[in-house]
């Protein structure tokens, strides 16, 4: 479902509306603009291995033609919000899983997106790092960004008490306003 939402894949049939726009009809020219308006966090972080932490985040701004001054201003800020000020010059393979995931979140946030899509963000993390990531996502949500998180982490879901949409074999089986994990 996440792949469909970020248009990494197209559905065989049907439409997907995001903010009133059918994203299945986006052409290759419009697609980058759409992706810049949604933040995405991946289970495997998807960081660029040959770029440092701050370059990885700056890249997302560079591709949208943001000015150098603006990039210099915003990158440290967003790194501070995920507590990574001291890792700016590290390369992804020098980071722990939790740190890498926080870089991925920072990159997703740099455009101030209205929607943040997180695909199993805690899937590769130990419980402590998972909690840290969950706290950050919750904070982002409080600041007004819609966070869509796909997860199998029962503890996380039960602790957050947010809206829970359960899916089984591609179909929604429940939708609770302050839900718990559904087996």
């Amino acid at each position: 479902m996440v792949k469909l939402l970020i248009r990494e894949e197209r559905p065989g049939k049907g439409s997907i509306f995001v903010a009133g726009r059918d994203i299945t009809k986006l052409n290759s020219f419009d697609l980058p603009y759409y992706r810049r308006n949604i933040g995405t966090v991946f289970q495997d972080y998807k960081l660029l291995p040959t770029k440092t932490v701050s370059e990885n985040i700056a890249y997302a701004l560079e591709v949208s033609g943001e000015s150098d001054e603006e990039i210099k201003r915003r990158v440290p800020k967003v790194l501070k919000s995920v507590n990574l000020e001291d890792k700016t010059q590290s390369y992804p393979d020098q980071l722990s899983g939790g740190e890498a995931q926080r870089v991925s979140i920072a990159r997703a946030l740099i455009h101030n997106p209205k929607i943040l899509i997180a695909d199993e963000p805690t899937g590769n993390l130990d419980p402590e790092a998972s909690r840290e990531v969950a706290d950050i996502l919750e904070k982002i949500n409080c600041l007004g960004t819609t966070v869509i998180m796909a997860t199998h982490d029962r503890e996380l879901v039960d602790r957050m008490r947010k809206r829970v949409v359960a899916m089984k074999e591609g179909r929604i089986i429940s939708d609770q306003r302050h839900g718990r994990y559904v087996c």
Partner: protein
Amino acid sequence: MTTIRRIFREAFTDFFRNGLLSVTATLIMTLALICVGIFMVMFLSTNKAIADLKNKVDIVVNFKDDASESLIAQLKSQLLSRQQIKTVRYISKDDALKEFQSRDSVKSEIRQIVTAQDNPLPRGLQIQSVDFAEYDFVSSLIKSAAYSNFIDSSTYDDNKETIQNINSSTSFVEKVGLGLSGIFILVAAMVVFNTVKLAVFFRSKEIDVMRLVGASETYVKTPFLIEGFLYGFFATIISMGVITGAIKLLGVISIGSVFQRFIEGMAPIFFSQFWFITFVMLMVGMVIGLGASWLSIRQNVAS
């Protein structure tokens, strides 16, 4: 403008950070370009040698003493009217004598007999042509009725075999040279293509990530193309360095050996054509590098 600057910076940063991959691709390309370079030097040297040889081959037509000056002048102007004929030099009796006297091989007794007062040496025309096939025309002309009675001898028949040999070896060298260059460039292109393809394949995940964070197609692909160009660019510099070094080194170590003359003949041609060879190599390197990158991206990176 900012975007172009960033794309270039992106390409240069990637080139240097993917050190091993860049070095491998550049070195493979270097090997290919060295082959191309050596081939060009060989080709130019052979061409030069053949051109020199062509200049040395000429026909001398000797006239009987009863041939009038106006007849000789008529033949001369008739020959000069042909485009393929480069020079026609009139050799007067005095010229022939001077040349004869200056020859070392002539014995001094004979030298004393042949004097300006009693000069049996004939007048002649020395003919040089750009195209060897033209000598056949010269031959048929001097054998025509208008001239044949006044012509004592000509060196056409002596030189005929040499001329034919040079003619056939010229076209042979040209054909083989072109054929082998073509094969070399093709093989080089394929090897480089595979190396670059591997490089792009290793990084296809990165390309996906770039797209997922909202980079446009141009922004993703152009740095790879520039990297392809950089492989060619650096490979050209290294190849020219290696060939220059090799020619200078061989110039020193070949002294006294059988290769000395060969290297001595090749070195000035290489240095006089240095920029031309560099240009051709850069073009070949650039086309292969850019082409390989472009094809690899198309194959490995689905939109």
